């Protein structure tokens, strides 16, 4: 596929155009951090950001979501949410890949998640390559970066004041055709520079951590391993790792009586919370902290690959950096990979 390019100024125009036609989610700066936010002004957009502290998963799987309402007299009503055409602009390749991981899990028949699907279908994802990856990242392990991920429709890579545009899906193609006059075919010089850049970024990442991820399947057999006991001692069972993870999708439902009807909501939950698997009888199949930590790693690195043929981790490094007690998934990768 041919690569296109777009200049800095024209990219600005592109963003403005998108903003006028669609709901635009893009990184903005707020209180010393970046976050994805629905833009109210296209000039707020930040393109040289590192990464957002919280993953963009919340745009597709909100922390609290209404599933249906039940009227004792009328029965169940499912109020379909209105989703206008949206664009998630400037997401990092790892987070974009997380969406494709979620796609493989949540859109797999027969248990398809309609709410996720609706939002996902209506949202075009445009990613922005990481040419200067952060220290915590290890996206190379799962081939989810640093230049291109797996879940985006368009990939933008900044090379010297222009952006190389790679069209990844037919939907991406559509966008490019819509704004055809802004994009030009990338020149040879730029492409050379682009190649060098890709190589350097990949090499840089490979120097940090390089493992054979196929071997991670073996984690399935390592329950009770001392490594998890040691980490469990340290773990304080907050759920920062799963709440900030772009992939973690576990949920909990709760019913509320609201006036004349009941509403069922769904919201985030996490396997590191001690009550997650506790049953009404008092039995808890994962009763110790070590069990829960093991489960989280094993689920991401071994069980999801076995069931869905993709990895449950994209190497964004949020859990590594935000964990108050320094529990490090990279240690698991090194030990078993």
């Amino acid at each position: 596929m041919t690569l296109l390019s777009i200049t800095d100024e024209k990219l600005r125009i592109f963003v403005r155009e998108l903003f006028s036609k669609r709901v635009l989610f893009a990184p903005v700066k707020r209180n010393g951090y970046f976050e994805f936010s629905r833009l109210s002004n296209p000039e707020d957009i930040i393109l040289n950001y590192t990464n957002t502290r919280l993953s963009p998963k919340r745009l597709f799987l909100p922390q609290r979501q209404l599933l249906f309402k039940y009227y004792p007299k009328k029965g169940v009503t499912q109020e379909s949410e209105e989703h206008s055409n949206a664009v998630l602009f400037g997401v990092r390749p790892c987070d974009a890949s997380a969406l494709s991981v979620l796609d493989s899990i949540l859109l797999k028949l027969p248990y398809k998640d309609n709410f996720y699907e609706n939002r996902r279908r209506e949202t075009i994802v445009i990613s922005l390559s990481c040419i200067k990856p952060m220290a915590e990242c290890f996206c190379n392990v799962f081939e989810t970066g640093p230049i291109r991920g797996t879940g985006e429709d368009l990939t933008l890579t900044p090379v010297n004041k222009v952006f190389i545009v790679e069209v990844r899906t037919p939907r991406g193609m559509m966008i490019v055709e819509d704004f055809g006059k802004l994009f030009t075919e990338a020149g040879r010089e730029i492409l050379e520079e682009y190649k060098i850049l890709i190589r350097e970024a990949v090499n840089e990442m490979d120097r940090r951590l390089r493992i054979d991820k196929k071997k991670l399947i073996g984690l399935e057999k390592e329950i009770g391993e001392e490594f998890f006991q040691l980490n469990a001692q340290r773990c304080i069972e907050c759920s920062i790792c799963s709440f900030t993870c772009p992939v973690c999708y576990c949920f909990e439902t709760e019913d509320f009586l609201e006036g004349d009807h009941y509403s069922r909501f769904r919201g985030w939950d996490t396997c590191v919370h001690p009550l997650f698997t506790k049953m009404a009888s008092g039995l808890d199949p994962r009763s110790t902290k070590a069990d829960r930590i093991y489960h989280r790693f094993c689920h991401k690195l071994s069980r999801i690959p076995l069931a869905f043929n993709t990895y449950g981790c994209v190497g964004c490094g949020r859990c590594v950096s935000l964990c108050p007690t320094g529990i490090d998934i990279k240690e698991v990768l090194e030990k078993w990979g």
Partner: protein
Amino acid sequence: MKKITVLLCTCGSTLLDNIDFNMVSRELSRNPLVKRIEVLDGICKSSIIKNLKLDAAERIVVAACSNRLLEAVFKSLLSFSNVEFVNIREHCAWACREREEATSKAIRLLNGGINKVVRSNPPQSSDCLGIVREAMVVGGGIAGVRCALDIANAGYRVYIIEKEPSIGGIMAQLDKTFPTLDCSICIEGPLLSEAGRNKNIVIIPNSEVVSVKGRVGDFRVLVKLNPTYVDPEKCNGCGECANVCPVYQPNKYDVDLKPVKAIYCPFAQAVPLKYVINKDHCIECGLCMSVCTRAAINLEDKPKMLELNVGAIVVAIGSDLFDPRHKPEYHYGEYDNVITNMEFERIICASGPTGGVLLRRDGKPAKRIAFIQCVGSRESAPGIEECSYYCCAASMKEARLILEHDRDAKVFIFYNELRAFGKGWEDLLYRRCLEDGIVFIRSRPSEIRRSPEGNLIVVYEDTLTSKRGELEVDMVILALGFKPSNRLAKLAAVLGVSVDSQGFIEETNAKFKPLETKVRGVYVAGTCHGPKDIVESAVEGSAAAALVISLFRGGNVRLSEIARILENKCAGCGKCILACQYDAIVREGDKVRVLESICNSCGACISSCPQEAISLGNWGIEQLASQISGMLSD
């Protein structure tokens, strides 16, 4: 699914003008939990409730008048189902100016009630605790004996715990009682023997309470039986042993004025009439053993422990009299002829050491006698601040006794305020004293001196005339006030009851719960509750008995509204202990425990617990938060 019945009362149609009941019903019927709404005309009519055919498991919201009135109407429902009362009359219909306002307020109140009753837990049968229908009375003075007899006559077993060898207390030591001047032991003696005879009364003399565990209805009391060296089962009170005993000792009953043998019976009317040995004076010669035909004497006797299981406890251990040695200006113990009123009672008594003649220690008859009132009362240290209650009347009685024995005697009473407030006191005591020529001097004498002849000189200032004076008399009698004994403080600690600033046992409420203590099931009577006379002590004894009987008759103790610790939750942080104003929560191991008899159900603990590890009926966060959200929903 929890279904709710809402009963709306129009209060005999009077509320129809204030509240739009149709609107209220319509609003409430939107709630899927509400199964049935009934608009009733006067819910307080018993026929209406009967016709409703309410299910025992139902949750009911009653919207009518104040819960204080409704709870009486719904007595039968309260016991087995979840009922929530919503006040739409006083709090709503009668308090709002406009009909619309009242209607919307009623809906809000009702939504709160519905939300609360959804979350309520029905009372459990395990909330009721059984009662041991036996009582313990600590102290066998007039208050204790009166109390024990009244409980026993109602058909319940009573244990009297008495520290002395015989019951009777102070009253047994008195010569005459005021205001009628009749013989004290002649009135009390029959009462004591009645107690001894009563099959429901178990008198345990020479004993003391060591520890008390448990709660109202089920106290476990450990009693220590001090050795008397005579087996009470075998002793028949023949007195042969005392006849041969070679050792004399002062008798406490006679205020140490008249000696008895080391093996003795405290007084002739003692109950039980058994001999005891005072080991402090016994020389263990064994003569008594040799004459006792029933082999009742065992000089190797040891203390024994006894465990009693009782449902209620009455504290009636009395008080001590003030020790006049603490007032050195009166030289008691130093000057022979300064005596206490208790010593006087024994001296003037016909069976006393002098056979009823008022003699001085030097053998001369006392002709001029002075009484000093308020010794150890109505002052701060060393005495107590309260009035001794009895000593005005007692000294007037004693003055009259002196004159009855000797018409020529001259009696002076140094008083502060003369308090002749009781029935017959004014007439039978005060007026007759004036008629008999007894001289009342308003003064608290500053000193007693001794004249060279051995007479006493009372130095005083008459506060009516502001004149100083000195009065020479043969004898001074000190009218002593009450002082709580050390035993009282110890017993209060064992029972967990509180004492007031003077050291007497504190009642729950001075006005309407005067004999109930902080600990439920523990009552107080007599002078350990505060200074009082015989009549008042007997009244309190009977009154305490009534409380015990009503507890025993009342069926089971309901604990549904008492704070309970959920042990699997409690982390033992102790915040509840800090919050409890009644000291009803104690630490036990790494958890805490509620003393059920002390808990007042205020709920300060449940709101101080960070994790709701304490519950109190249906007043938890769950219920109240739910009620709040109902009240605020639109």
